[in-house]
């Protein structure tokens, strides 16, 4: 029984090796170190086998020569615990309910908080955090408010040179006095006076700066601007009012009797929604036809996170002599109040989850204790078969830890599902940290471990005699 198995036993026999082997070799001398033995020739395999044989011989003595090899190792421990758990599936289900609920509510709370936060920051990212508005500074005077600075006409060129700026456009209202704006020049004194759409002048980059979409046709470009071409782009609502719905036949509108070719219609802007109600002229055209004297506002789209830098550099770029005369609105920080409210809600839900976890842990402790009491006969038998107190205790500990882990896994899965369903129903993007999911599962195992400690100690303390007397 001892000779040949020592030769054929594979490394698997080694893994389960425990501290049972005494630290002395067959001749009672201190064990040689595991490293290379000087002076011994032969292949590493032979050395390994020799070492194994030494250890085997030593262990054999300690086990009384009855057997040598794998003592109750991790694999056996897990296998026995799995059998113990699997023996009563119905009870297992009831046991893990508490943990499932606790871990589930934990994952749902954290998941929904993350999803909601992600939702907020996504909106924030999309517009607020990448949009910059530049206005001339104003001062209150007796005559009312008036601008103290001005935005230069070449605002696009100046700002595009700054790092972090992706698109720039200037915009200004055009004073057309009482000029009538019509699609057809009809002189009908009987017609009721109509309110003309607003006329705005814009630089070519504006469309991109406010994230506008062209519905049909095109937006004007720098060429139109320089040549002061008589072209206009209509906002979608203004186009409807003017009865212009296609531009392929080059319709014209008349402003103060002068014809302007409609080259495009825009819709869907994320800033300056008044653009949709307006007739938009190239800035150069507005300057030459309507004596536009000043740009009121410039919009820019910036890279995420470029806000502080842009806020500092834009005034200098636009008004090097007097940076104070230009106001720049950069993305504001997320609302602190909002965060605080969210933190409060999270705390309440996390507290609920913690209570559920506590109850779950107590449930595991209770059932494991019951199981220990029921399995006294089995414990006695195992002790009689050579199990140490440690073997018994660790078996029950692993059982309750695995029950906790199961509860954690199921709870996490359910929690993820709930987050997913809620996100879908609200059309949010579900966001959930992988580590939260994995961590909660592990937390379940930890709770199982803690809950199982007392029952495991109880089980380990059971005397084999009393256990065997009970019988099963």
């Amino acid at each position, binding site marked *: 029984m001892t000779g040949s198995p020592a030769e054929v036993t594979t490394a698997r026999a080694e893994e389960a090796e425990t501290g049972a082997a005494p630290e002395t070799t067959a001749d009672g001398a201190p064990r040689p170190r595991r490293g290379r033995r000087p002076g011994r020739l032969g292949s590493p395999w032979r050395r390994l086998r020799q070492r194994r044989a030494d250890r085997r011989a030593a262990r054999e003595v300690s086990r009384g020569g009855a057997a040598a090899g794998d003592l109750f190792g991790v694999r056996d421990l897990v296998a026995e615990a799995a059998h113990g758990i699997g023996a009563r599936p119905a009870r297992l289900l009831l046991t893990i309910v508490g943990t499932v609920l606790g871990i589930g509510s934990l994952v749902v709370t954290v998941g929904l908080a993350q999803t909601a936060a992600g939702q907020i920051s996504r909106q924030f990212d999309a517009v607020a955090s990448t949009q910059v508005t530049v206005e001339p500074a104003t001062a209150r005077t007796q005559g009312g408010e008036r601008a103290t600075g001005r935005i230069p006409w070449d605002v696009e060129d100046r700002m595009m040179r700054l790092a972090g700026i992706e698109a720039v456009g200037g915009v200004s209202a055009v004073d057309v006095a009482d000029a009538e704006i019509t699609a057809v020049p009809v002189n009908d004194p009987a017609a009721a006076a109509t309110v003309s759409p607003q006329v705005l002048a814009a630089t070519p980059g504006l469309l991109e700066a406010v994230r506008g979409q062209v519905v049909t046709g095109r937006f004007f470009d720098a060429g139109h601007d320089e040549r002061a071409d008589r072209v206009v782009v209509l906002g979608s609502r203004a186009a409807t009012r003017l009865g212009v719905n296609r531009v392929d036949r080059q319709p014209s509108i008349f402003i103060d009797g002068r014809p302007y070719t409609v080259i495009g219609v825009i819709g869907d802007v994320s800033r300056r929604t008044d653009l949709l109600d307006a007739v938009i002229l190239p800035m150069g055209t507005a300057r030459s036809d309507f004596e536009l004297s000043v740009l009121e506002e410039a919009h820019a789209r910036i890279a995420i996170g470029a806000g502080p830098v842009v806020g500092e550099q834009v005034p200098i770029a636009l008004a090097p002599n007097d940076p104070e005369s230009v106001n720049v609105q950069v993305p504001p920080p997320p609302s602190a109040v909002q965060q605080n409210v969210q933190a409060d809600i999270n705390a309440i839900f996390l507290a609920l989850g913690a209570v559920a976890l506590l109850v779950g842990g107590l449930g595991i402790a209770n059932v494991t204790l019951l199981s220990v009491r029921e399995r006294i006969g089995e414990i006695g038998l195992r002790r009689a078969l050579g199990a140490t107190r440690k073997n018994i205790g660790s078996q029950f500990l692993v059982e309750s830890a695995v029950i906790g882990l199961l509860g954690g896994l199921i709870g996490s899965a359910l929690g993820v599902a709930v987050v997913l369903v809620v996100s879908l129903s609200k059309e949010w993007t579900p966001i959930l940290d992988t580590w939260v999911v994995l961590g909660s599962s592990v937390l379940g195992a930890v709770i199982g471990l803690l809950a199982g400690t007392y029952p495991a100690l109880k089980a380990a303390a059971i005397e084999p*005699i009393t256990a065997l007397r009970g019988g099963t």
Partner: protein
Amino acid sequence: MTVLEVFADPTPAEEPAGPPPPVIELRGLGRAFPGTPPVEALRSVDLKVEAREYVSIVGPSGSGKSTLLHILGLLDRPTSGDYLLDGVSTAEATEDQRAALRGGRIGFVFQSFHLLPHRSVLDNVLLATLYSGVPRVERRDRALAALDRVGLSHRLEFMPTVLSGGERQRVAVARAVMTQPHVLLADEPTGNLDSENSAGVLDLFDELHADGLTLVVITHDAAVSRRAERSVRIADGTLTEVVA
């Protein structure tokens, strides 16, 4: 000489000195349970069981049989005297060492079988290998061999609950012998069996004894006791040899 010394010394000192030591040797062993007055379950018991012996211990209930079995099985400690297993004193052994000795040298057969109800016959037999250090690669083969030995090869995947009493006890015997113990301790092995099944189990004991196994059977049944080579009577905590 204590167990501890043997642990460090691979060649037991007795070995060159002629005959092997008795498997079991009790020297003036006593076991008293605290109380008012203290109950003396065993009083100065001396007993030697040589290797390959088949000994029965008989006595009425309350005579100290179970206490003696628990001490022989290292499940209980004597309050006085010494118990030598394979010539080595167990008085100084720690709990873990005693557990190792139980796993490695002693096989138990109980009156109530003590099989795990939710585990198959094969699993129940394999249970004994967990704590006795049988190499993993050998476990299954040895369990199969042991079950074959007791004639239950056709019941491997059965649950103990569907087996007859005799079959259950044979599973228990297979579990006890598969670790190749030095001594098999049986506590009323036929107590829960009808006469036919009892005879089967006792025949099995005879075969195991013929194969060289040392057996100690504790019983109150004269029929069981008669099958042993040697019989010892226990009454009021003292042992007397029964001369056949």
